[in-house]
Structure formats: structure tokens, C-alpha cells
């Protein structure tokens, strides 16, 4: 009996090693963020301080919006429950520091993807959940209907710490117009100051203008000018250096868009398991082992679709039905004339 003890111990040890490999995949081991998130039991998500349609809290403290839905999708995939998200409202100025310092794990806060942000300051953009562009809002009574009517001395209210400030300078410089920039730290103050008449125009991303317009004393008194002066692809951001977490966030977003493309909704997701289309079956976890690559089970994408819905549902619920931007414009699927196009989930 004792003769075999040595062999027996090594066998037990080997089984034990194998067992740990099967319960905790290599991916989960590599991703500190994923491990920490599963340990904490909630996803730490940085959002705006209140932008209707994107990330906005109601009186009861429930967050809604398309940016919020990205975090909910990740929570559904990683933790199995879309409600297990801790939202941290951040100003434009605070957002990147909060992410790089590890206070949050996803920044989903209408943030423009630019080269310097992606390459320079320890961040990685994982995709685009809203294609936007900077525009101008003016009072209807001013009679201005185009940026061509702007004159020297115009004052423009905006936020600090955004690409808006830079685009604004490029725009006015190229037109040779002298302007007065009035830059606030918080969006609420920008709106209040513009609404009070401090500025002739309010400039930020057009989606932001449309959303903030609903907060004005009298929304009908203001119009958004037709010109778009910049490209603003907005999307979720993660810390550089955790490629597994980066992939999870990227593919949680992609799943929502892909699900819309294949017509999978929160209502019909379960039925789609018996679909004839292998692409659909993969998306609802009835075929393939897609989750394993991230260290997740195979139902991760099904949970996203069931609990959060596809991109179209999210857009309709948050942006179209609230009257902010009923027309999806470029944020329509590529198959329907928009530019939403994600790599295939396979």
C-alpha cells in the first residue's frame, strides 16, 4: 500500500491541477479585471452626469441610455445579471483619470475615439456605439439658420476637456470668425448659461445637443443647425493592458449590433435557439464555444440579448422613443443604409 503512496499523491496532484484548469480558464486567469469583477459581483461603469438617451438617472436612481446599456450588457455576460452594475457619474474632465487609476473598469460616457486618446494616455477604445458629429444650437428667434451667418464676436458655450473645444477653434479659425469661448466643467451649467442668454450658441456633439435641448426651459425656442463640423465616433473605453477584458467589452457591444442584424430580440432570443441559421445559433449559444475564449460560459451572449436587448431595441427605448433623435441616421445597420458594421461573431 505505502509503496504506491508516492504515485497516488502525484495522481491526485495532477487531477487537482487539471481541475483548476477546467474551472478557471486561462483567460480568466490572465484578466485581472474580469477576476476582480466576478469577485466583487458588479461591473464598475463610468457614465455621464446626466445626458438623456445616453446615460441619465431618473428620480429613483435608475440609469438608462445606450451608453448605460453597454455596461449592462457586460454585466449580463460576465455576472449573469444586467442590473449588477455600479454607475459612477463623471465629468468630462474626470473620466480618463477615473479609468486609468482603476476606479472604474469601463468608461461608457459619450467619449470620442481619437488617436491621441487611444495611443497616448493608457486607454483602449473598443468600438463605436454611436456615430456623432459636432454641431451648433442657436435660439430660433436669432434668425440664424446656418453657421454661415455667424459673425465676429459670437459667444459659444461648451464643456471643458472635450474634443469640442478643439473642433470649435478649428471651425471658427477656418472661417476667420472671432469668437468668445465660454467653457464650463459640467454640462448642466453649460445648458443653464446658454439658456439664460449668456451665449449666442451652444456647441457639442449633435446627439448631446438634441438630448440637452429636452432639458431647456422651452425646447421649441432652440434649433440645431444643419452643419456638422467634425467626426465624433463615440464608444466605450477600457484600460490599456487587459486584452481579455477589452475583448469582453468589445464583443458585448458587437453582440448587440449583430443580434439586431440577425433579427434576434429580447423577446424571441430563446426561440432562436432552434433556428436553421448557424450564425444565429452561435449568437444565442446553441452552437459553438464562443464564450470559452473569454473565460465565460456559452450563454453569455444570450443573456445580453435577453436582458438588455439588441442595439435597435436599445436605441428605440432610449433615443428614438424619448424624442431625442427619432431618425437613426448613420447609426443604422449597414444592411439598411447606415454605417453600423461589426465583425462576425464566430
Amino acid at each position: 500500500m505505502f509503496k504506491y503512496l508516492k504515485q497516488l499523491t502525484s495522481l491526485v496532484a495532477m487531477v487537482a491541477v487539471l481541475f483548476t484548469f477546467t474551472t478557471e480558464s486561462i483567460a480568466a486567469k490572465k484578466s485581472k479585471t474580469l477576476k476582480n469583477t466576478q469577485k466583487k459581483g458588479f461591473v464598475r461603469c463610468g457614465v455621464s452626469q446626466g445626458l438623456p438617451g445616453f446615460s441619465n438617472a431618473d428620480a429613483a436612481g435608475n440609469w438608462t441610455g445606450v451608453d448605460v446599456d453597454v455596461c449592462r450588457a457586460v454585466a449580463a455576460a460576465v455576472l449573469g445579471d444586467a442590473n449588477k452594475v455600479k454607475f459612477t457619474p463623471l465629468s468630462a474632465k474626470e473620466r480618463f483619470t477615473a479609468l486609468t487609476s482603476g476606479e472604474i473598469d469601463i468608461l461608457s460616457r459619450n467619449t470620442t475615439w481619437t488617436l491621441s486618446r487611444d495611443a497616448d494616455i493608457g486607454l483602449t477604445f473598443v468600438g463605436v456605439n454611436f456615430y456623432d458629429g459636432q454641431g451648433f444650437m442657436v435660439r430660433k428667434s436669432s434668425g440664424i439658420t446656418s453657421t454661415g451667418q455667424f459673425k465676429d464676436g459670437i459667444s459659444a458655450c461648451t464643456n471643458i476637456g472635450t474634443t469640442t473645444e478643439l473642433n470649435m477653434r478649428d471651425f471658427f479659425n477656418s472661417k476667420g470668425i472671432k469668437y468668445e469661448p465660454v467653457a464650463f466643467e459640467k454640462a448642466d451649467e453649460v445648458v443653464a448659461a446658454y439658456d439664460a442668454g449668456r451665449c449666442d450658441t451652444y456647441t457639442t456633439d449633435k446627439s448631446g445637443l438634441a438630448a440637452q435641448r429636452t432639458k431647456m426651459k422651452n425646447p421649441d425656442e432652440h434649433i440645431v443647425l444643419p452643419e456638422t463640423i467634425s467626426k465624433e465616433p463615440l464608444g466605450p473605453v477600457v484600460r490599456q493592458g487587459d486584452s481579455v477584458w477589452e475583448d469582453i467589452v468589445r464583443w458585448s457591444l458587437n453582440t448587440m449590433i449583430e443580434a439586431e442584424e440577425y433579427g434576434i430580440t429580447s423577446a424571441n432570443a430563446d426561440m432562436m435557439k432552434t433556428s436553421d441559421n448557424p450564425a444565429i445559433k452561435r449568437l444565442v449559444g446553441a452552437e459553438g464555444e464562443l464564450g470559452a475564449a473569454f473565460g465565460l460560459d456559452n450563454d453569455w451572449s444570450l443573456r445580453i440579448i435577453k436582458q438588455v436587448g439588441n442595439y435597435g431595441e436599445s436605441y428605440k427605448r432610449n433615443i428614438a422613443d424619448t424624442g431625442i433623435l427619432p431618425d437613426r441616421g448613420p447609426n443604422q445597420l449597414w444592411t439598411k443604409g447606415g454605417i453600423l458594421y461589426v465583425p462576425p461573431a464566430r
Partner: protein
Amino acid sequence: MNLKLKDIVPQLITVIAVVLIFGFFTYNAQINMENRGIDFGYGFLSQESSFDVQFSLIEYDGSHSYFRAYLVGLLNTILVSVIGIIIATILGVIVGVARLSPNYLINKFAAFYVEFFRNIPLLLQIFFWYFAALRALPLPQDAEAIFGVFFLTIKGLYVPAFIWQNFSIFFYSLVAAVIAIIVIRIHAKKVQENQGKQIPVFFISLGLIFILPLLSFLIGGVKLSFEVPVLKQLATTSFIYEGGVSLPPELIALTLSLSLYTATFIAECVRAGIQGVGKGQKEAAASIGLTPNQVLKLVIMPQALRIIIPPTTNQYLNLTKNSSLAAAIAYPDLVLVFAGTALMQTGKAIEIVSITMFTYLTLSISISILMNWYNKRIAIQEK
């Protein structure tokens, strides 16, 4: 020997502990930044800033460097602090004296002012003055002219600009007047010490400071004209004033709230200082035949100042540091321009925050040194 060791060891341990703690955090920060691919360095200061600032004392636009943007913010911080300190001091002295007034109404009004303004958080007051005043002020096209040349509107206070001819002559005449006053004061002191005669220095000084510059206008060829702001239409309902000088409402609201807030504390310092001078001093001074004015100027104030200056220094420091709340209402101070926009555009958080902290430290220490010097000057000279 033993005693010495006992003294040194705890201090040595403290120093080592402090160094270790700092070393640990620095090392940690370095590792973290390396892991996340963040470079450390101050090279960005010479890069083009590419953002504009609303209000600047020096020439600046987005084609200048980040360092220039830093200077813009710093000067704006100094501007609002200096104006704030001057107004708060004047107001504080008036209210402090008023609180000691035997007049019931003045006394109670001053007390109410102090209690009201010092017990409301400053940030709220800043918001109040900015947004409440902003809503109450007229649009440029509806503004009534004050004295025909000033326009207080929602877009700011527009005042006429001075256009000088031969400004240098006017300036020299002012300098001459100041030198003359100093000479007369020294002479008057000598005359009083030697002969006991008093020369009315105040009225002579007043005369000099008016007459010499006036002469520069009459015979020196100095001419002053005003450029009055003129209304300009931008669009159907959108107007501004052109020409003259415009003070943005952000600057006005910030200066106003900082001064009103800090003045309450200075008023209390002043009251404490005056009450801290013994009653006997006043009676003794009166008994040797000094007039009430002389009693205040020669006996009470020199003693009261010794009590007033040190706590007032604290208030000056507070005001300077509180000016960083400017960011809330878009006044482009150091925090908004440098620790705000520049930080966001470069992502150099550690560098910019350290520079900003060092700058405030330098500002505060400068004020301290200045006030300590003044405090020493007025302190009792032991003979």
C-alpha cells in the same frame, strides 16, 4: 551620549518612514504608468495647445504653447485674487468697524451681513451670483446705459476704454507727485519732532496728487479720450457691444462672491483687533488731549493691527485658494485652463496636478512672506 541617541533615533525613524512611504508611492505610480503605457514628462509644455481661452491678460490663442496657457490661467487667478483681496479688505474694515458702532441699525445690519454670508458655502454663493445675476441682467440690446457709457448686460460689463496721448508724461507726473509726498512726510515728521509744529500732510498730499497730473493735462500735452462701447448686431435677436473693455460676468460674479464671503471673516478679525486694545489705552490717549481721530490713528490702530494682521493673512490665503472654485462658472483660472482643459487634452495628470499644486503653494507662501514682513514692521519694537 545616551541622551543624544535617544533624541536622534525617533527622528531618524520618522525620516526613514517618510522617505519609504514616498518612495513606495512613487515606485507604484511608475509601475502603474508603465503598465498602462503612460509616458511621464514635461515636454508637452512646449507643444501647441490648440484650445482658446475666453479671457486673458496676455496675448494668447490656441497656436501658443501649453506653457503660455498655464501663464494665462495663473495671471487670471492672480487677477481675481488681488481684486478680491482689495475689495474684501476695504469691505471687511468697514463692516468690522460698523459692528462696533453704537448706532443700532448700522450695528445690526453689519452683524446680519457677517452671519449671513459666512454661513453659506462659498460654492453656493458663487452659483447664486452667477446664475441668479445672469438671469436678472438684461440682454445687450435691452441694457440701459449707466452714466451714458457703462453697460451691464448678461454678456458682461462693458466699460469705455481709455485712449491716451503722451501717457508717459502723465505717468511721470504721478511718480513725481508720489515722490513729493514722501519727501513732505519725512520733512513733516522732522519738523514735528524738532519744533512740535504740525504740518497738514494729508491735505498737501491730496493737493499734490491731483494738481501735478492736472498740470500734465494742461501744459504737458496729455490727452485722454474714451472709446465708448457700441451695440453691434450679430443676428436678429443677438447683440454684443464692440469697442471699450468688456469684463466677463464670470469674473464679476467670482470677484463679488469671493469678496463678500471673505470680507465677513476679515470684519471679525478687525472687530477682534479693535476690541483687543485695552479700554485704558483709549482713555489715557484722550486724557492727554488727543482728538478722537488721533486716538484711533495713533493709539488704537497701531495696537489693533498687531492682532488683526496674522488672522487676516489666513483669510488672504483662503481667498486665493478659494478662487479655484472658478471652474464651476467658466472663469478661466489656473484650475480650469491648466488643471482642466490642458490636463484633458494631454492626459498628463500627474505632471499637471503637480505643477498646479506647486503654483498654489508658491502663491500662498508669497502672500505669507509679504504679510509676515508687514506684521514684523508693525510689531512692538523692543528697545
